[in-house]
């Protein structure tokens, strides 16, 4: 059969899966939901006397945790991509998937940073 010489599909088991490739934006989605819902819940359940500072501090911590998770993902995918280049690995599939994963992780990290920035500009629980 024509083309049978290119068999070797299992050669790149180092490719990340689909979920790993989009993991960066899953972290962003989690950050967005946690900040939005955390703000809503915090402003209802935290006593009003300690409200703005406590809620803001808690949200900043949650934001930082997500940033750290996003940075770890980007660091790891960037490392895998560098490794593939360093080894001269020319397997298109693995390189593409790690490059895509790295770009997605890095973009998502930037998005998580920008999404949380209003925490530094606006007081929590202000109508």
């Amino acid at each position, binding site marked *: *059969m024509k*083309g049978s010489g290119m068999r070797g*599909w299992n050669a790149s088991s180092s490719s990340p899966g689909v979920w790993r*490739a989009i993991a960066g934006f899953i972290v962003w989605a989690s950050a967005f939901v946690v900040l939005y819902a955390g703000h809503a*819940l915090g402003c209802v359940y935290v006593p009003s006397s300690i409200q703005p500072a406590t809620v803001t501090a808690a949200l900043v911590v949650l934001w930082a945790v997500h940033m750290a998770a996003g940075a770890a993902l980007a660091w790891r995918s960037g490392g895998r991509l560098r490794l593939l280049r360093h080894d001269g690995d020319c397997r298109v599939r693995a390189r593409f998937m790690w490059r895509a994963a790295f*770009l*997605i992780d890095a973009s998502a990290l930037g998005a998580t940073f920008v999404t949380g920035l*209003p925490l530094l500009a606006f007081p929590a629980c202000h109508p």
Partner: protein
Amino acid sequence: MREAPDNAALHRALDEHWRSPQGWRGWSAVNHTAMGRRFMVAALCFFLVGGVLAMLIRAQLATSHSGFLDSELYSQIFTMHGTVMMFLFAIPMLEGFAFYLLPKMLGARDLAFPRLGAYAWWCYLFGGLILMVGMALGLAPSSGWFMYTPLSGRQYTPGINSDIWLIGITFAEISALCGAVELIATILKMRAPGMSLARMPLFAWYMLVTAGMILVGFPPLILGSILLELERAFGLPFFTVELGGDNLLWQHLFWMFGHPEVYIIFLPAAGLVSTMIPTFARHPIVGHAWVVNGVVAMGFLSFGLWVHHMFTVGIPQLSLAFFSAASMLVAVPTAIQFFAWIATLWSGSVRLRLPMLYLGGFLVIFVLGGLTGVMVALIPFNVQVHDTHFIVAHMHYVLIGGAVFPLMAATYYWMPHLSGRMPSARLGSTAFWFVFAGFNLTFLPMHLTGLLGMPRRIFVYAEDSGWDTLNLLSSLGGFIQAIGFGIFLLDIVLHARKGDPARHNPWSAGTLEWAMPMPPPSYNFASIPEIRGRYPLWDEPELNDDIEEGRMWLAACPPPTRQTLSVDVITGEPRSVIHLPGPTWMPLYCGIATAVFFLALLFKGYAVALAGAAVTVLLFACWAWQLAPKGRPPRVDASPGIDLPGHWAARGSPGWWGMACALAADATLLASLIFGCLFLNLYAPNWPPPHWLEPAPWLAGILAAALAGLLATALARPAASRAIGLEAAAAVCAAVALAAVVLLVRQVGSPSQHAYLALMLVVLIYMGVHLGAALIMSLYGLCRRVRHSHAVCDEELRIASLWTGYTGLSGLGLLALMLLMRGSP
């Protein structure tokens, strides 16, 4: 190398298996080419209806104090214009393109679930017809395409108008969800051998993300529609403020769908653009991985924007700022795609053919719409222009620029593929200039009328408002645009009869759909090609001959059934051979039964609705029974020296992916319901309710134990050897849990007393419906073991256990929610 079989005999044998019946029996066809065409034709008809409605709106607004339409009729017309264009034209048209093109681009002979695709089309048609008939009878919805409460509620819209929208649109949304499930399973599992994700065409990436967005974006609106219909029909007060409801809940649920919807429309169109531009630039797309990143980023970020439609409703400042940030962020991945397209054109050698003209129009108009999009992402500006004609102008620049121009380009680009004839460059370019000039004349002045303060949705305005000239210009532009669309349609009709015959691959494209005769044969590929690059026809110009002469995969002659390949998700390694069903009336029967259910709801015939639902379930069970293997599926000689199992015997079959996708949509509906509970609990006035739902400890215990048991049966490693025990255990657990849920429903009392009780009733109904389905699946599984025990595969169990596992897990979560909500502030 495979010996080429007798070529003519191979094509004849394939055509015998794959061709659709002729004449009226053709309505039983399920093939993706037929379905794609049906979706496109129906969507085009709805587009014409929506266009006529737009002209009526512009005729009314051309002058101040126009007496052409009265207030009620005008409200019906603008509501139907938005509804038809968003729900019945844009998404179905793009799904039609995807249905038609994707298998051909991916190297498959059909979509993953041909019957589901046909059912989706019937649901779409029937849902659309409900709205059309309502409009013809003067009963069209009149509360705007967003159906804000309380205007759409029973108090202010007592007639059937809002019900027609809620039921017709929900019916049509089932179609979109079925289509999304079908597309995801096809893209992930039914590509040509060697087509890894790295080599997958960009259009498939766009459609993969879009289909995922449909799964997550549509359920909030389906839930909102169910809640509003329950309020209208039974007085359950989800949106009634004095009884613990809140109108803002509707706005949240609507815009959780409504904003991603814009990207659900734009992304497939952008996918078409990303396919056409490399062809006319004669250069591969620049920044392939960046474009994929941009598409994924848009898919996610678009779910963080919905509140920018609600900046003026009084949401706390910090929350607004989160949404404003996300609204501005989404411009970045959009710009990445734009720069990739421009860089591709810059790097290549551009041929200015007819579709390229429309692509130029798209690039200009969508950039303008995108820029005003960034403006309305800013809270202070948004507050100023909220509900003015500025927003109308922005929305049309985005949607017509972002979807209609690419669709027109795509129509001209793939027209030779559909009909085997070339379009007329002269008529096509005339149509373009009419549409382009008319569009800008219509909507550019609308920015100014908006900035001058003209509100949306008004049917008259004062003479001294200063809006007359601008409105007259907009109306003139609208009619010029309509002439352009008329010429475009004329070109389509004329080319089918008088167009010059198209030569093979007339645009010299690199994607796989052009590696077949035009119009395409019923089976797409005589043999399924092996792929070595992103542009197979540029990489291997002789690929077409190898395919046609049966030198590639699945070229056995005569083929035993309708067959195509299933591959590994990442690598594109062939894993199994899928046996696909042929023409059948079953999707039509299921569509009719579903229509009976919805129509009975519309006319408050609840006994008939229950009967319709029961018949639908029964038909689906027959459908599954027909398709399940009756004997051990044999291995298939897929190519010399390689035999592959049938799809039932392989793990991760399209069926498994289909169920996983359906459950993802289901989980989103559940998440929206939980959001509704929390939102009303935290923000709605007039809480707490008159009494909390207090399940007796023994009843809660039994329910929890039964749900845990159901989850355990799903987690037990599915194996055919112990199938009967697992199925029986699952059936018992589901039956016990269902009985417990029925007892809990009795404790709710009168759910019309307060939104909390109404929500608890909906939570229990959600659990009950899932448990009922789990019970039916388990009983079905037991019947399968009794009748065809030797044919039962582990994969069947794995698919069923996805449902039972989800039912157990979600049930436990909802029980916890129910218990936690008691006594909350």
